[in-house]
C-alpha cells in the first residue's frame, strides 16, 4: 500500500506545497527547523487538519481531496499517530490507554486487552499494564504511546518527534528499540524529527523542510 500527499498545507505564511509518496515498509523522515511545518504534515495525513488544496491518497482511495470534496474522517483512516507530547490519558491505566484505539472501533474488552498486552510486550513493557501514566518515566511513556499506535495495526504509522519528550538516558534505549519495532512493522512510517541522528538510525529516506 502506498500513501501520497500532494498539495498545500498550513495557512498564510506557513503554507507550503509538498509532494511525496511512500510505500509499505518504507520509513520517511521529515526534517527541518522548528516552525517549518513538520507536525502539520502528520496532522494532515491523520485527518486532524484539512488540506488547502491537493489530495491525500492511500492506495487509490482519497482521504482528503478538497477540490472534489472528498473526506475520510480520522477514525476511518488506517493510520495512527504518536504525538510529540504523547497525550496519554492520565485517568486510565497503561493497558486501557493502549486498548483505547481498539475499543473505540468496537473491539470487545477481552480481545482488546489481550492484543494490548502482547503489543506492550513487544515494546518491552510487559508488567506495566496496571500502572498509571503519571507513575512512568518519559521513556516508558513514549513506549506506551507507541504501543497505543501499533495495536490498532495501522497501515501508516505517524511519529511526531518520538525522542524529544524523553530524558537523555532513555533516548539511547529508544533509539535501539524504534528501528527494531519499525523493522517488524508492515506498513509505512512517517517520522518527524529535527535530529539527523534519528534519520540515520532508522535508515530512513529524508524529506527536508526549510
Amino acid at each position, binding site marked *: 500500500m502506498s500513501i501520497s500527499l500532494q498539495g498545500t498545507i498550513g495557512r498564510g505564511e506557513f503554507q507550503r506545497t509538498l509532494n511525496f509518496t511512500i510505500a509499505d515498509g518504507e520509513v520517511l523522515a521529515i526534517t527541518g527547523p522548528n516552525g517549518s*511545518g513538520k507536525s502539520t504534515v502528520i496532522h494532515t495525513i491523520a485527518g486532524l487538519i484539512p488540506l488547502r488544496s491537493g489530495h491525500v491518497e492511500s492506495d487509490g482511495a482519497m482521504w482528503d481531496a478538497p477540490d472534489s470534496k472528498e473526506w475520510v474522517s*480520522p477514525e476511518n483512516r488506517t493510520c495512527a499517530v504518536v504525538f510529540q507530547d504523547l497525550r496519554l490519558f492520565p485517568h486510565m491505566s497503561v493497558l486501557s490507554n493502549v486498548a483505547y484505539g481498539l475499543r473505540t472501533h468496537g473491539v470487545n474488552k477481552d480481545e482488546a486487552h489481550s492484543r494490548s498486552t502482547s503489543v506492550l510486550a513487544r515494546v518491552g513493557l510487559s508488567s506495566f499494564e496496571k500502572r498509571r501514566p503519571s507513575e512512568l518515566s518519559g521513556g516508558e511513556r513514549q513506549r506506551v504511546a507507541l504501543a497505543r499506535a501499533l495495536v490498532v495495526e495501522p497501515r501508516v504509522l505517524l511519529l511526531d518527534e518520538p525522542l524529544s519528550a524523553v530524558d537523555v538516558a532513555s533516548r539511547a534505549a529508544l533509539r535501539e528499540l524504534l528501528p527494531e519495532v519499525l523493522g517488524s512493522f508492515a506498513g509505512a512510517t512517517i517520522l518527524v524529527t529535527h535530529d539527523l541522528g534519528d534519520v540515520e538510525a532508522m535508515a530512513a529516506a529524508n524529506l527536508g523542510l526549510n
Partner: protein
Amino acid sequence: MTTSTASLVTPRRPWVNRRDVFKELIPTLVISGALAAVIVNFTGLAGPLGSYVAFVFAYLSVSFLFGMRHDKVKAIDKVMTTLVCAGFFTAFIPWVSILFTVFKRGASAIYWGYFSSDMSVTSGDDELNMGGLSHAIVGSGIILLIASLIAIPFGIITAVYITEIKGRLSGLVRVMVQSMSGVPSIVAGLFVFTVMVTGKGFSAISGAVALSILMLPTVARTAEEVLKLIPEDLRTSAYALGATQTATTFRIVLPAARAGLVTASMLGVARVGGETAPLIMTSFYLANFSTDFSGHPLASLPMYIYQNFTNGTDLALSRAWGGAAVLLSLIFIIFTIARLASGRAKG
C-alpha cells in the same frame, strides 16, 4: 520543545460533519413523532409535558436504532447526544414557564394607575383597577439606596485593600468575603432583627443593613476582578512621578475602573433586590406610601409580593404576580445594563 502548534488549525470540536447529521435527522424526527403519539395513546402520559417526555423517549430509541446501522459505538454516541441535548432543553422548560407565567399573570394586575397608587385604602382582594405598588417601589428604592451606601464603599475599599495595598491579610480578607457570601439570608435577617429591631420595631434602615451584609461580598468580589484588570503600569508610573497612594488610587486607578465599579455595584443591587427573607424580619411591610426610613416599617417589592401571596385570594394573587412582573423586569434591566457595561469595559 514545542513545534509551532499554535499555527496548526486544530479543530476545537472535531466531530462535526454536518451533511451526515442532517441526512439522518429528518427521518429520526418523523419516526420519533409517530412513536411518541403511539406512546401517549397507550400510557398515562398526557398534555404538553407528557408528550414531550414521550417524544424524548421515542427519539432516544429511534436514534439508537439508527445508530446501530453503523455500529454500537455510533449508536451510544447518538443516544448520549440526545440525552445531553434533552437535559439542556428540559432544564430550560421551567424557566420559560416562570417568565411566561410572571408576565402573563402579572399583566392582569397592571393598569394605568398601578405605579402611582399604594395599598393604603385598597385591600388585597379588591378589584384590580384599584391600588398599586408605588409604595413598594419607593420603599425598595430607599432600602436599596441605603444598603448601597453601606455596601458599595465597603466593598470597594475591600477590593482596594486586596489589589492596591496587597497587605499580608489579603488572603484572610478574601476568605472572609467568600464566607460572607455564604451567609444564609435569613441568618443575616435574624442578626439584624435581634440587634436593631427587638425593642425598637421594624424599620427600613434595619432592612438596609441586613441587605448590605448580603450585598458586600458581591460588590467586593466583582470590584476586585475589575481592579485587577487595570494595568500595573498605570500605578507604577504614578508612583514614579511621586504621587501618594491616596492620590494614585483616587485620581487614577478608581477613575480608570469606573465602568467596572459601576457594574460591580449594579450586580450587588440586582443580587439583593429580590431578597425577601431578611426583609420579613427587618423592614417588614407598610401599605402606605412613605419615605420614612426609620421608626416604622417600610414596603418593598418582595414583601408586597409576599403579603399578597399570604392573602391567598385570586385577586391578591394576581397582585402578587403583578409585583413579580415589576420586580423581575427591574432586576433583569439592572442585570443586563451591568453586563453590557462590563462587556464594554473589558473591551
